[in-house]
């Protein structure tokens, strides 16, 4: 009995079945790089899982040991600086890739019927990505990450009705205490990634069920097939993307490695508090309005975008030729860029 026969008796899966399963016809527009942004965050998520598991071997989530363990990873562990820096830059690129992917989906109208549910799943993934980024930054236990977490918990506290519970849940008490860091660690390294994996499975399953939205361009040659094979053609594209990302991550990790700020001091608030760049929008927004107004309006905006496919459908039914969603999108992008640059450029 050959080895292949031995396995096929125990795993009755044929190569043709696998080909059938993976060979989803891929529309031709996915040959364009701008449309391959969906695979980018997925690839970066895998990088984050791998580097995150490596970091967890040394990281100790308690107020007494967290900072020192991060310092050990950064300065003493073999290639610790590289693993931590790739993790940090992977998070940055993942947030950027998710936002860019969502923008592409928005401006191409790929969220419209029948893909409303997948848009909502995507919004959940965006929020999940931001929360993973936020909780991860809090784990370093630097001054800025400590006070960033404190301020964020107090922002959550202002949410009507559920606010105090959210704060209690996040901090494991009324204030940042001995149990807070382990809670952030569990959320960052177990709960949120598990939720993310579940959302990715649902996201991909819906894409497979509905097929990818197809786009056609004026420069397409007539007579060419509309689709190409996932395996190996599109997989090759994704592998090239993965290679480019790995090179990019390594260059960023080497040229701009993750550093250590001053250790958290619960009795000394720094004069300038800044969250990670992807939360600059929220932070600036909070400075523009009273805290309750800012939190409620921010929640309203996120909820509006969550339901955008239905709002857009209603607008298009009433005014079929309206470019409303495009104008709203442009306004949103300008607001995100403007508020981020503003917050990054000034101290207060």
């Amino acid at each position: 009995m050959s080895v292949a026969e031995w396995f096929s008796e125990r795993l009755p899966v044929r190569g043709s079945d696998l080909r059938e399963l993976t060979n989803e016809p891929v529309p031709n527009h996915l040959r364009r790089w701008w449309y391959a942004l969906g695979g980018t965050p997925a690839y970066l998520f895998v990088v984050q899982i791998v580097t995150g598991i490596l970091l967890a071997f040394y990281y100790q989530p308690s107020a007494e040991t967290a900072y020192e363990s991060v310092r050990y990873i950064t300065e003493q562990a073999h290639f610790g600086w590289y693993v931590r820096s790739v993790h940090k830059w992977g998070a940055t690129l993942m947030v950027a890739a998710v936002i860019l992917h969502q923008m592409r989906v928005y401006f191409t109208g790929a969220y419209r019927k029948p893909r409303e549910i997948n848009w909502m799943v995507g919004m959940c993934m965006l929020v999940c990505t931001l929360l993973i980024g936020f909780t991860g930054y809090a784990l370093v236990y630097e001054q800025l990450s400590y006070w960033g977490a404190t301020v964020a918990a107090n922002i959550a506290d202002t949410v009507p009705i559920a606010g105090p519970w959210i704060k209690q849940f996040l901090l494991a008490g009324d204030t940042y205490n001995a149990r807070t860091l382990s809670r952030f660690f569990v959320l960052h390294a177990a709960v949120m990634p598990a939720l993310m994996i579940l959302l990715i499975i649902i996201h991909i399953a819906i894409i497979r069920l509905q097929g990818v939205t197809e786009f056609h361009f004026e420069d397409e040659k007539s007579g060419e097939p509309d689709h190409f094979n996932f395996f190996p053609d599109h997989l090759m594209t994704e592998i090239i993307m993965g290679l480019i990302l790995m090179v990019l991550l390594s260059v960023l990790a080497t040229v701009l490695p993750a550093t250590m700020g001053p250790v958290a001091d619960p009795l000394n608030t720094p004069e300038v508090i800044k969250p990670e760049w992807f939360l600059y929008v929220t932070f600036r927004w909070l400075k523009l309005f009273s805290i309750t107004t800012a939190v409620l309006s921010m929640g309203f905006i996120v909820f509006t975008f969550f339901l955008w496919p239905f709002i857009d459908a209603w607008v298009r039914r009433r005014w079929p030729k309206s470019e409303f969603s495009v104008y709203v999108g442009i306004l949103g992008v300008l607001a995100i860029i403007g508020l981020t640059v503003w917050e990054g450029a000034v101290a207060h």
Partner: protein
Amino acid sequence: MASSEASGRRRSLLAGGLLLAMWAALVASYGTFASYAVRFLFPARRRDPSWTYVLDAKSLPVGQALQYITPDGAKITLARQGSGQAAEDFVALSSVCPHLGCQVSWEGQNNRFFCPCHNGVFAPDGTGVSGPPGDAGQSLPKYSVKIQNGLVYLDVPQADGLAQVELRQIDESERIVGPGHDPCLMADLDRDQDRRFS
């Protein structure tokens, strides 16, 4: 015939009832587990406050303040505002800004509490005067002080078994002075900023 139909109805009714009971038991058991799990995630209620010795009243000069972390992690500023030996000569306030939770510090020279995050200013009795807390009418929560045999005691919450932080006095050198008030601090912050954006 009629009796067999009635028996069939009874059987299907019984089967339906059993199915319903099974579902009810499943929902009740998993629901109970879920409620326990949710309750578990929220910390146990802390113990009632009790009088805790802080320091000898003579060791804190008028116009100066010390900061403490209580056994349950609450941060308190104890300031001496009078030269007498009575509880009224001392004030103990939470040093957590009610705006966004930043650390407030006592500025003896300006006779005020100050929050560096958004320039919140509090009067010596903890009332919000200007900045976001003043605008929102927020004050610093107050803790009771008592003096017994020349010793200062604070009525503070105790630890609930997990938080092992002792009541501790923070060294004077660790105290923050406020934004733009301390050139050394500003130099540190500039360096931190450089790190953040590097």
